């Protein structure tokens, strides 16, 4: 198990009712952590339409997680 910080934006922040939270998790990848937090908070958007950043760098959903990582969950973008 590792401790990571999950950070939420836009509709994810509103849905979760918080900006961030510390999680103790067995998730090995960003995608596995998204599965955990989406089940917990009722996020309904698929990873195919969302993005993730780890420690302020955009990352692949398959990226491995390490102790202390800050994982930023980005809902489907809509700039323009």
């Amino acid at each position, binding site marked *: 198990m590792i401790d990571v910080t999950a950070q939420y*934006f*836009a*509709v*994810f922040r*509103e*849905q979760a009712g918080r900006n961030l939270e510390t999680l103790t998790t067995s998730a090995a990848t960003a995608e596995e952590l998204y599965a955990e937090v989406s089940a917990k908070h*009722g*996020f*309904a*958007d698929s990873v195919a*339409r969302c*993005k993730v*950043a780890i420690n*302020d*760098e*955009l990352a692949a959903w398959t990226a491995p997680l390490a102790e202390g990582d800050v994982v*930023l969950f*980005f*809902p*489907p*973008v*809509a*700039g*323009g």
Partner: protein
Amino acid sequence: MSFEITDQRIDPEALKADLRHETAGACVSFEGWVRDHNDGEPVTALEYEAHASVANKEGLQILTEAVERFDLLAASGRHRVGRLEIGECAVWVGVSAAHRGAAFDACRYIIDQLKQRVPIWKKEYYRDGLSGWINCVTGTPFKARDTTS
């Protein structure tokens, strides 16, 4: 070359000055404006949110790609955050190149990539008092919608 998320009003004329180059024969820019409707719903205002540091980095990456791919002389972009009223400029993209073909293509490339890749989110406020995050299924009574400016 510069890309910035900003909470200040976008001034296209001032930004265009940065695209000037003696070898430039073409300048193309795009402005995305807040319109009063979307998907049949009357819209009263928009709110944009971004992750500024990731957005600025990804925006600059898109500009860099465009400069290399279309042999541009200059390229810039701005995107507003915060609450915007109908008619305000939400996004601006401008490029200069030796010839118009590359300038048109590059401008289109940048705005299209920006809409797909840069972490910016748009919340619409409707006349009936409801609101919704565009393109998102989570937490919204509306089905996921794809919007184009």
